[in-house]
């Protein structure tokens, strides 16, 4: 049995998404900028896709900008708000300590340019509150950017409340909703979201395509210069096949969200209940406001990469925030941000589910993970020291 439990990394494409793409490779292969009929057919597909994506987010089609993915959308949203703010002498940004690197590294770049960034603490409940955002807003704040839901630990942020705080203060609000779109009900108008980033391959669409929702009238800055595509705000011939695949995937996800969400959440809860039985383990992330598919644990006394390799050998594809899997010496900044110490953060495991997973697969995971954890603990000098009292348990 091979269980794919790494859907927060990427998902299998749905058949509807594949079918939606196929005509645009060698039949309707036109360039939407061309005046002839072949080009115009592609243009129609492009605009139909825009309308579909807009419907799923509760916005107008003209507020959707297609990009190469979530990272580009995050970059453009943040850079745009920063440039707009700077023109008015506002150079303060509010974010959180557990953002994705697409956001964090963009913010780091702006800090080098003289912007000041407040990273909200996420140790309390592994989440932030709207009050924290409110308290951090200053007269020179030009942007609040918080993720919608965390990719590693699954916490869902109080987006509507944060949106309300930002609206009241007149501060633009961007959310990196890469993990949320297609999985949670989103309405950008009701939630007072000014900009939202999404990525197609997180909801069974193709890779290499995403979108940025931008409230009408917000001044965007180009990240990619060139032709006049996307109303002049994002150059480059549109990835029509990808965009059509994404639109089909997001529609499918939104149409079936009410059936998928409880089913996936039930599998998640069974995993959390089962893995909590492993001694000296801890759940990462908000236990209540949590992505339907996210399970994240730290297991004391073992290291994440060896855990992943052994799980893979036993038919479970998962991920970890250990240093060895990140290629750096430090474990995941998300785990450190929620207050996990290095020793424990190295032993992290993330299982992320989708509606393609089955109850039998959950049974398999529940059998394999405790065995592998125990096997690794049995050869770990850290575990021995914990057991003999030479070292104090943290979890």
């Amino acid at each position, binding site marked *: 049995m091979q269980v794919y439990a790494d859907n927060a990394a990427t998902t299998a494409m749905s058949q509807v998404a594949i079918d939606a793409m196929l005509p645009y490779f060698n039949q309707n292969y036109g360039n939407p900028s061309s005046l002839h009929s072949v080009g115009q057919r592609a243009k129609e597909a492009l605009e139909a896709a825009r309308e579909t994506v807009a419907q799923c987010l509760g916005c107008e089609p003209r507020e959707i900008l297609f990009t190469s993915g979530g990272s580009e959308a995050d970059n453009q949203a943040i850079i745009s708000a920063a440039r707009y703010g700077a023109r008015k002498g506002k150079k303060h940004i509010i974010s959180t300590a557990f953002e994705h690197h697409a956001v964090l590294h963009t913010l780091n770049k702006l800090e080098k340019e003289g912007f000041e960034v407040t990273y909200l603490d996420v140790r309390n409940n592994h989440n932030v509150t709207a009050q924290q955002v409110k308290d951090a807003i200053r007269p020179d704040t030009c942007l609040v950017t918080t993720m919608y839901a965390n990719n590693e630990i699954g916490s869902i942020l109080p987006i509507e409340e944060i949106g309300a705080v930002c609206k009241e203060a007149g501060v633009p609000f961007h959310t990196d909703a890469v993990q949320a779109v297609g999985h949670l009900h989103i309405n950008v108008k009701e939630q007072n979201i000014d900009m939202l980033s999404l990525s197609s391959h997180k909801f069974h669409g193709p890779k290499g395509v995403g979108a940025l929702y931008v409230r009408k009238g917000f001044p965007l800055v180009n990240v990619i210069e060139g032709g006049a595509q996307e109303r002049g705000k994002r150059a480059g011939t549109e990835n029509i096949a990808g965009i059509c695949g994404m639109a089909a995937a997001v529609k499918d996800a939104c149409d079936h969200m009410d059936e998928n969400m409880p089913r996936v959440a039930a599998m998640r809860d069974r995993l959390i209940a089962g893995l909590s039985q492993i001694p000296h383990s801890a759940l990462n992330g908000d236990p209540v406001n949590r992505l339907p598919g996210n399970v994240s644990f730290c297991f004391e006394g*073992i290291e994440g990469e060896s855990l992943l390799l052994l799980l893979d050998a036993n038919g479970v594809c998962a991920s970890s925030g250990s240093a060895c899997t990140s290629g750096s010496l430090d474990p995941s900044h998300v785990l450190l941000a929620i207050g996990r110490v290095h020793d424990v953060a190295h032993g992290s495991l993330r299982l992320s589910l989708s509606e393609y997973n089955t109850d039998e697969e959950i049974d398999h995971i529940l059998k394999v993970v405790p065995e592998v954890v125990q096997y690794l603990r049995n050869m770990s000098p850290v575990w021995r020291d914990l057991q003999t009292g030479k070292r104090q348990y943290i979890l």
Partner: protein
Amino acid sequence: MALYSEKVMDHFMHPRNVGVIENADGVGEVGNAKCGDIMKIYLKIENDIIVDVKFETFGCGSAIASSSMATEMIKGKNIHEAMALTNKAVAEALDGLPAHKLHCSVLAEEAIKNALKDYYDRNNIPYDDKTFPDCEHCAHCE
């Protein structure tokens, strides 16, 4: 996984000499939990020959494989041969390690040297301090 050679995967999936030696003649431990890898080596030595060796490792796949390979390479050898084991030899015996994992083979060499130093200390055998590294790699993640 293509990340590692078949040799590494073999020693990771089927590690040799895992465990503890009660009443070992030399014990060495290097690394720290903060860095994400700790290796502990136990030696049983008779007439300068390493008659048995066991290890415990907390760490990634290449750390476990490096410990396994290093213990295989010194088992049955005399202590001078064991002292001469280099991290390079361990990495080569594993058909190579990814660049960012080479420190795992360094850790294996250091763990063995550490265990031998412990053996020398216990038996009042004189040695040159310079022969033993001071686990320099641990410093950069403090």
